[in-house]
């Protein structure tokens, strides 16, 4: 994996239990911060009908899509059963206070 890390901001830029969007030419990426300050990054597009996941409610390690309330696993982008579908996830990490994102998608879901 040729991780090409980009500094996208600092931890404080992202609200706890919330998300911010990184715009790229291939579409938006949502960077999530959980209640325990864990970071995750997903393509900002719900596998259901493309709802912006960054606008959803972050709870535990999941986000509920704002459009029809599908729950998506932050770690791998998989919809929580009984819904089925998957959204691309991206590596993201914290270096000190700096949030580092890689645009090289994680392997995982097919498609997208």
């Amino acid at each position, binding site marked *: 994996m040729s991780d090409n890390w980009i500094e996208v901001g600092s931890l404080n830029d992202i609200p706890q239990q919330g998300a911010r969007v990184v*715009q790229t030419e291939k579409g938006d990426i949502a960077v999530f911060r959980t209640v325990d300050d864990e970071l995750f990054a997903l393509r900002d597009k719900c596998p259901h009908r493309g709802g912006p996941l960054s606008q959803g*409610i972050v709870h535990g390690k999941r986000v509920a899509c704002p459009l029809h309330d599908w729950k998506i696993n932050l770690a791998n982008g998989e919809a929580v059963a009984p819904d089925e579908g998957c959204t691309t996830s991206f590596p993201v990490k914290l270096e000190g206070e700096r949030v580092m994102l890689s645009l090289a998608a994680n392997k995982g879901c097919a498609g997208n």
Partner: protein
Amino acid sequence: MKEKLVVIGNGMAGIRTVEELLKVAPDTYDITVFGAEPYGNYNRIMLSPLLAGEKTIDDIMLNDEQWYVDNGITLHKGKEVTEIDRVGRRVVAVDGSSEKYDRLLIATGSTPFIIPVPGNDLEGVVSFRDIHDVDRMLQAAKQHKHAVVIGGGLLGLEAANGLMQQGMSVTVVHLMDTLLERQLDKPAAEMLKKSLEERGLNFLMGAQTEAIVGKERVEKIRFKDGTEIYADLVVMAVGIRANTALAKKAGIHCERGIVVNDTMQTFDPRVYAVGECVQHRGITYGLVAPLFEMAKVCANHLAQYGIGRYQGTVTSTKLKVTGIDLFSAGDFHGDENTEELVFQDASRGVYRKLVVQNNRIKGAVMYGDTLDSNWYFDLMRDETDISDFRDKVLFGQAHHLGDAGHGEEQRVAAMSDDTEICGCNGVCKGDIVKAITEKKLFTLDDVRAHTKASSSCGSCTGLVEALLAHVVGGDYSTAPHLKPMCGCTVHTHDEVRAAINGQELKSIPEVMKTLEWKTPDGCPKCRMALNYYLLCAWPGEYQDASQSRFINERAHANIQKDGSYSVIPRMWGGDTTPAELRAIAEVAEKYKVKTVHVTGGQRIALFGLKKEELPAVWDDLNNAGLVSGHAYGKALRTVKTCVGKEWCRFGTQDSTRMGIELEKMTWGCWTPHKFKLAVSGCPRNCAEATIKDFGVVSVDSGWELHVGGNGGVKVRATDFLCHVKTGEEVKEYCAAFMQLYRENAHYLERTAPWVERVGLSYIKEHIVEDEEGRKKLAERFLYSQKFSQQDPWKERAQGAEKHEFEPLLQVMNEKVLVNS
């Protein structure tokens, strides 16, 4: 050092309480249990299948002795407690040993009633209460032929059925002329009797026992009318009495049972009591469902959370005779104020009767096919209005939902383990069977809690029930309870609100910690509700948790299906000016708004804005004096008006001005669900006030106030609240009503269902009849408005919550373009 908890009675209620306590506060007490029976804890209700030979003792054990060891509990089995020394705080057992306590739990169950006739102490006369009794019956069945069961109630019939299965010839003697007279109506009881007779049971109805005759062992029974029948085993199943002897001796107040309060404490607050031995609000119980609820509350109190209250239980009945399905609940006899819906198909052996009052089910009797019993029971308990489907209700839930997916026991038995039972939550048969056997579940609610099956739409309830029946043998019971807020907690909306107020909880994490949330930070359902409850309870003090708000309320605009937003500025009372219209037109052009639409609430909506543009749009609108219309929130939406007496020839009052004043008073207010008002200038009601949450209709003599209306999916016309004379009164009543709704309704409950749930008389009592209470409510409303009437658009146009509207970063060709 840990406090000491001593439990008297190793039965179902006592140990269930200990289990609940271990769940919530495992390290609080050193626990010692005394049990008169020489066993671990077993499932008493399964004694019937044990007698019938369908189960073994191992099958019916709930907690074996190892469980006590594993949980550090000292068990004294086979040791009856003979004395409670409340001054010395210790109990004394039959062998003279004693144990000190800090808290004591009495769960001594009940004792079978033995009718006072000569010969009732002869050998061969038994009751049906514990394993020892079953042993004696099984012994008798091996050596003797004629069994007589006195009592045609549930217990008696189950005993009779069991003894018949063991090869005895059995006669049931019953004092009344119908069986199960407390559980069934006459037609159902007749059907039951007929099918039991077909299976080989004999009945003597209306027979009063005078004496039991024999030398050492029973030989005959003699009745009042002089007739006699042979008997070498007599089972007394005529009823039970709460076992209060020990408590009485210790001076604890008892009536028919040990009297307890809503936290399961006796008159000595160190001493708790649960189970069949107690009397709560004048009622004693003889089924397990209430005990489970009592156990929960008691454990909660022992763990010193003190928020649970036991409020009594609605119980239902099923008979555990394999192959016979009957069910009853509630007031199934009815009276002159009720109606009966009856379905009877004698050749199929099916009978159902629903007793209905005001389109709500008050009671139900079912015989032959009880697959829908839970559905009826839920409808009854929730007091659901059945008028929508009253014509089909007798045909069952499958018919009602248009879903033939219900199966019976044989069908579930034949299913493979990976057959999906619950489509909503994706639960398969195998998961459920495993949970039932490993976790020893035997109520539908337990299965719901552990597997999530049947916890959403409920259409698979019949299948889950059939599966339970198949695995545990048709002898589970329903434990009805009030619905928790969501899967993250066991508490109901009302309990949570009471705790927020009573224990002064002031943040979401604090609520979750104090009330033992099961998830680290809740779910969308509960977080949004908690945020609202806290906001309502602590105006001016509570800091809104924006991440616990749905996106529309966080962004102060409505998200649309393509992820763009719509914006609706407020137009007070539906009035506007050329200047406002010009400003809106300019914004629409400047930001290339795709659609401009006049809404149903008399406002103008701009569709298709990007989130990043919102602060700038708002700034432009603000400059023309336009503020947020809160069209996105669980909040005051709009006040719709007609032009009233200023222009209309029918108008009786200045309804437009009233609308504007009401909107100025109420805007910015957060409510459990959206809230709409309207004011019409005369009873022609052009503003459609009678489908609003609060509607005002002008009349010559003043104003008529209406509440609880709703357009939308399910139209409901308002209820008439009262008539008032002055405009000031209109405002006071409106503020008070809104505050009552804010403080009392559940989150996401519109006024229409809320008014139906609490009843119009409750609303009238607080708003119309209680002047002082109304003024206080209105005051609280106006106080909280001080903090909520800031235009959220203005704050954001000036830079608040910036992160909400800006991307974190823009990257092109892997190059960083904009850094926020």
